[in-house]
């Protein structure tokens, strides 16, 4: 019986090919966008975590001034380079239990668009920061070493890529030994030979040009006296497990006992406070941003599915009214109401299975194309297919189809045979 009903359903689908395709379009788009975005998100996450796993230290956090309320990884993008951290503070923080070392960071104000150049061509977005030669212990290098003299600099991965591209090379190591110029303003400029390249980093160090701290001259007023003050600190803890408690202890110190708290008072109109941002937080923030974007697309996919459901219900109602006579014939030769309903449900289920299978292929292909084109990031990220989505998508397609086909099937099952046959 079911095979005969299935045969009738299939022949109905085949008889109205265009209509069937349009009916399944909602499922294809819905399932496709959901599966595609889930795959894309998984691919990004996997690629991101694997490619950056050696580019940052998990037991590190940055200290800066920023909007406290924002918190989390997003704070990293809200750190304002205010010169507030004195050498005294740096020493005091270094003594906090659990902290193994502290690196001063002083963002250097540069002038104009041509702040950093190589062979007279500008390296856009480059940001110059003064620090010590201990930087290698805080920021992993992929090429070369930390600077050993004031005439050398360590550059971020993107800066190195720009220098290398000028040499028609993709290899950042070819930037080593090359000279970049920094315009410090007021007719002061300096040339630096690249001694090292920072590893490709997801946490905002790719555009850095790190030079000796002696080029950093920012000061702030502390009780009427001008003192040297850094714009930020990088802190290493003894272990990852200590990260949270040490971050809290650092903020407590800065708020309650530091010289920086007096200096920051002068900037009170900015309503900012001391913040710490661990590398793990930044990574988590980036991953969750991708997931949020995926969630948005999945929500759009769900809307497509919902619209698809309405489309299926509508088309099935049309199909029921078109096939009234057929229903009448089947009822006359012994089909039960339930069997009539089953016939229409088989029809929508077939469309659901086909729709979700095509949707799966569409989703995976979409994810693959986005990854190949590098629309949302570096191209060449491998596609990660989470196979658990294959049965989920098929079941989702069937469930959505069945749900939308229920009312038309019920309506068909209630058709009186005499009324249906009168349709002659």
């Amino acid at each position: 019986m079911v095979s005969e009903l299935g045969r009738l359903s299939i022949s109905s689908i085949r008889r109205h090919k265009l209509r069937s395709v349009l009916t399944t379009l909602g499922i294809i788009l819905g399932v496709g966008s959901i599966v595609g975005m889930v795959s894309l998100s998984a691919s990004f996450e996997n690629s991101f975590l694997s490619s950056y796993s050696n580019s940052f230290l998990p037991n590190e956090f940055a200290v800066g001034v920023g909007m406290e309320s924002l918190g989390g990884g997003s704070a990293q993008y809200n750190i304002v380079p205010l010169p507030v951290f004195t050498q005294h503070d740096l020493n005091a923080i270094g003594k906090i239990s659990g902290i193994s070392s502290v690196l001063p960071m002083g963002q250097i104000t540069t002038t104009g668009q041509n702040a950093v150049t190589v062979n007279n061509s500008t390296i856009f977005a480059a940001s110059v920061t003064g620090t010590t030669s201990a930087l290698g212990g805080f920021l992993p290098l992929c090429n070369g070493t930390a600077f050993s003299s004031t005439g050398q600099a360590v550059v971020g991965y993107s800066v190195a890529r720009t220098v290398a591209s000028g040499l028609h090379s993709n290899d950042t190591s070819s930037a080593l030994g090359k000279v970049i110029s920094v315009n410090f303003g007021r007719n002061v400029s300096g040339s630096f030979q690249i001694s090292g390249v920072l590893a490709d980093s997801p946490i905002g160090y790719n555009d850095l040009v790190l030079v000796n701290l002696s080029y950093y001259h920012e000061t702030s007023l502390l009780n009427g006296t001008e003192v040297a003050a850094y714009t930020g600190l990088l802190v290493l803890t003894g272990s990852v497990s200590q990260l949270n408690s040490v971050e809290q202890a650092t903020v407590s110190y800065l708020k309650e006992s530091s010289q920086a708290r007096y200096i920051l008072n002068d900037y009170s109109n900015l309503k900012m406070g001391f913040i710490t941002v661990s590398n793990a937080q930044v990574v988590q923030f980036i991953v969750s941003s991708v997931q949020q974007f995926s969630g948005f697309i999945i929500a759009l996919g769900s809307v497509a599915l919902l619209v698809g459901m309405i489309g299926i219900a509508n088309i099935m109602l049309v199909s029921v009214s078109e096939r009234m006579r057929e229903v009448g014939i089947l009822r006359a030769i012994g089909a039960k109401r339930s069997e009539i309903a089953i016939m229409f449900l088989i029809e929508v289920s077939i469309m659901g299975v086909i729709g979700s299978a095509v949707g799966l292929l569409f989703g995976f292909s979409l994810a693959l194309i986005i990854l190949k084109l590098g629309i949302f990031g570096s191209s060449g990220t491998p596609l990660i297919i989470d196979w658990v989505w294959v049965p989920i998508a098929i079941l989702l397609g069937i469930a959505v189809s069945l749900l939308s086909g229920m009312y038309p099937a019920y309506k068909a099952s209630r058709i009186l045979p005499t009324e249906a046959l009168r349709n002659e």
Partner: protein
Amino acid sequence: MKPKILQDGLLRTDIRITETGEETVETLDEVRKVYSSKGGSYEALRGVSLSIRRGGFYSLTGPSGSGKSTLLHIMGMLDSPTSGKIQYLSRQVGDLPDSSLSRLRGDEIGFVFQAYNLVQRMSVLRNVMLPMSFSTKIHAAERRERAMDLLERVGMLGKENKLVLQLSGGEQQRVAIARALANRPSLIFADEPTGNLDTENSGHVMGLLREINEDGGTIVVATHDQDIARFATKHLKLRDGSLVGDEI
């Protein structure tokens, strides 16, 4: 208990075997059918009582609008009466749920319609096999063979793989007769079976129905054509929803 004699000289009691030894297949008792709509109501059948005996060949005649099709549909359990009782063998049809009624209809009743009512997009063979798939009477392995036998009987062998669309009206009606016989029904109802056919094809179709009757099949043919009614051996005449006699 003495059976009550009704129109057509048939019996209506709980006794299933008449005094002449003929088994009663179906009995209608005071069946009324009223169609109601916003514009008012229309009484299509006004208390029809009759019995159908096994092996009978009945004609159901009457002018257009007299209630022939309505009565045929009610007898064939395609429609339910507004009031009155229908008994099929020992079963009260009114008490049956839809699922049982559908099975009873599929197993025990065959229909032949004026417009053939075959599933157009299926092959001839599939159409004949279709009623068997809703029934447990014919074993799945025997269905194809039985369908082929039936097609041979109606002279359609060799055209079993054709689509219904490719057949002439006369051929379609012969396939419809084969389909009606699929589940070895006790009763065959034919509603104007020759209404869409020319004289030659009408003759073929009625010849087939007579053959079926001669083999023991019970047939009721609704028609307004007196020539067709003459194929029957027993006659039921309807006028304005009431049985009015046993003349053609």
